[in-house]
């Protein structure tokens, strides 16, 4: 992509949301810290369950792909990311991450706003594509249409309708109805815009798999891998999509954490490995940045079989154009350094948002975040 802003080439963003609250301490394990094992008599990882990064931190052993990316300097690891006065409700905390509004509520998502800056006149209804059913609030904004896709191949109106003899005329009529001009307030403007975006985007997206060819085999029984495959197909069709969104979970490991956390990271590790290979084949490695986050980390102390809702956490920025390494400081675990039993954050997540908005998507961050945050120097120009 030729366009440059801030000296950075515009790139495309792939968001992977880790829903349910990923356990930070068992993702990036402070394996040389005795306090970790004191607080985690049951959930502490050691020995073969670890892949050491340095003499302080180790990855969970189910994160093989991520260790490789880290070793190739293609993964920035954010340690101790969060926001002031953490909220431990899934609902509220995810809202905070989605809207970038820790102190007030909003129905507008930060990527919805980014979309409106990328495409102010709403010319492309698939500037953002979400894989999965149901729209995350991060993508919501009045006037911004986002395609939410289950499977690309069957996406569209009346595609399976048998017996309709007058389908073209029907489609014309439906298209006339979904014009986003609601003087009456009913149907809502949002409903009409949703319909408009659905109709416009459907035709484009259904065709996307046709232009895609790749040797990469994404496992069928791995949902996040299938979502990432869909994203690769959309990329290969060159539809002008800039923001891709997928979710993985549930990381809400109050119980049976060791088993479930391992499965989730195994799936993600495999999926991202396929996707990174695919990006290379498609020639998209340089222009694609992956962002992975979760709504919160979990309590420092385990509860015997798992961990409860906590605050602070880890997040990841991945890509050929990313300056890899460890960012931020590993939060201290001592009682005096804890925040109500949780780790204290040291990097505000909105600093990463500012970085992704300006250095990846090429839009101003201040209109989205309402204030200026110091960016991190983690994306190559």
């Amino acid at each position, binding site marked *: 992509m030729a366009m440059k802003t801030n000296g950075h080439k515009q790139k495309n963003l792939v968001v992977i949301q880790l829903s*349910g609250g990923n356990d930070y301490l068992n993702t990036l394990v402070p394996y040389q810290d005795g306090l970790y094992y004191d607080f985690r008599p049951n959930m502490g990882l050691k020995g073969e369950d670890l892949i050491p990064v340095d003499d302080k931190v180790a990855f969970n052993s189910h994160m093989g792909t991520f260790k490789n990316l880290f070793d190739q300097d293609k993964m920035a690891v954010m340690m101790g990311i969060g926001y002031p006065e953490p*909220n431990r*409700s*899934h*609902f*509220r905390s995810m809202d905070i991450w989605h809207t970038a509004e820790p102190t*007030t509520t909003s129905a507008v998502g930060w990527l919805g706003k980014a979309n409106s800056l990328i495409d102010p006149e709403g010319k492309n*209804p698939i500037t953002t594509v*979400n894989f999965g*059913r*149901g*729209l995350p609030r991060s993508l919501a904004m009045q006037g911004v*249409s*986002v*395609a*939410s896709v*289950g499977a690309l191949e069957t*996406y*569209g*109106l*009346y*595609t*399976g*309708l*048998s*017996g*309709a*003899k*007058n389908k073209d*005329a*029907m489609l014309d*009529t*439906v298209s*006339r*109805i*979904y014009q986003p001009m609601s*003087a*009456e307030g*009913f*149907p809502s403007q*949002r*409903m*009409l815009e*949703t*319909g408009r*975006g*659905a109709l416009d985007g*459907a035709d484009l997206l259904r065709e996307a798999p046709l232009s895609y060819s790749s040797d990469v085999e994404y496992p069928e029984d791995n949902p996040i891998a299938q979502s990432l495959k869909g994203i690769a197909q959309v990329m290969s069709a060159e539809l002008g999509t800039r923001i891709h969104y997928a979710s993985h979970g*549930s990381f*809400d490991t*109050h*119980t*049976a954490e060791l*088993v479930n956390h391992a499965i989730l990271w195994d799936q993600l590790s495999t999926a991202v490995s396929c996707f990174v290979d695919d990006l290379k084949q498609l020639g998209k490695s340089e222009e694609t940045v992956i962002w992975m986050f979760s709504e919160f980390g979990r309590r420092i102390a385990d*509860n*015997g*079989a*798992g961990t*409860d809702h906590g605050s602070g956490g880890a997040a990841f920025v991945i890509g050929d154009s990313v300056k890899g390494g460890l960012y931020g400081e590993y939060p201290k675990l001592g009682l005096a350094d804890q925040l*109500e039993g949780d780790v204290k954050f040291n990097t505000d997540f909105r600093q990463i948002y500012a970085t992704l908005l300006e250095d990846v998507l090429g839009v101003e961050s201040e209109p989205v975040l309402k204030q200026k945050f110091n960016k991190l120097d983690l994306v190559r120009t």
Partner: protein
Amino acid sequence: MTTVARKHEDVAVTAHLLRRAGFGATRDQIDQFVTKGYGATVEELLNPTAGEPEDQDLMDRYFIASVEARSVAHADPQWSWRLATSKKPLEEKISLFWHSLLAVGGIKLDHGLEMLTEIELFRRLGLGSFRNILSEISRNPGMMYWLDNQNSHKDAPNENYGRELLELFSMGIDDMGEGAYTEEDVKSAARAFTGWASKPTPPPFFLGPFPMEFRFDASDHDNGDKEFLGETGNFDGEDIIDLIAKKRATAHFIVMRLYLFFVSDEPNNEEIERLTDIFEETDGDIKAILRAIFNSEHFKSEGVRFRKVKSPAELVFGTARLTDRFDIPDMDSSTLANQSMFMGQHLLNPPGVEGWHEGEEWVDSGSLIERINFAASELGRVDSPGIRRMVELVELTGDNLQPDEFVEACLDAMGSIDIGAKSKSVLVDHATQNGSGSSDRVVEMFQLIVSTPDYQYC
């Protein structure tokens, strides 16, 4: 009001009641209820005279795997059949309400038998006392497992149930994430529920369903003094529920949820306050609150009709019921649950403990396409008795209908529904250009009507 206008209004308001308190009704059924009268219809919905379903044996024989169902997928056909056919629609509707509010999901408890037991609990108690519902759900083994209370011990309380009980099930939090309770209250509630657990916990391996039971382990219960909502004592779970149920915050929270579910996506403060008073006066009698809702002028007013976005379940089962085709519980009825899932509401599997985000959030561009495609294909079932009768009703309206009369006749035949002026005028244009003289054209108009944005509201 003229007699004709009066009659039209009676039909429209009865149809509205049947959509909200159930899953709509066919045009002929609406006429029967109009004859009965509005107040009597409300009472029939609240106190249904239909006995236990006679077709349960048939259902169990057709879907052997759904009896003592292993997984949620095995259990789906049971609820799907009830939603498609029940003669006590409010029982199913209130079960959907509690299923989203006191949400337990297959994503963690993939135990069909237990999930169906819970829906049965909502059918049985869902119109009764809120305190009782809260007490029973706190003794529900599925809930205890879902929120990890079997891992909450005297010396190591697990806060999950204590927190969600307050935040999501009773007192609620405001838009800022603040509740009328403190972190200390959460911890006290967790301590009070120590020893409340399920037995056995679902096996991690696929050994089939063990019926789950509630178990109270007195030796694992914290008998120390606890401070909770400003009071101090050796509280156990029942005491906590007593204290919660008396708080106006609880009355307000539950009434708000009932209002958003049954009346409108936009809360009306005056009505919420009136209903909150009724909650307090009746000690949280859900039936009394619903009676007050359905009989209010506010509920009956035109201003709230078609102003609530249909949930996927409302859209799927409301539309499927129009076809009147469910004689035997075959695969056809069971796939309706899948349709709801494709639109974002996987029954027996809410996405998390907060249930589903409702209102306008139900519809995104992906789910709208699912909704339109499903509804259009249902209305295309020209061999089903329901669609045949609807075509007949349009034809009986008269020969040589003008395009606008034709569209009105179609809307009336579909259960006296209405759509906005703008969509209507586009449909009238369609009828003008494409004609209205054959049953093909009638069915086509039905399909276009369910494709409108207006049809997404009930």
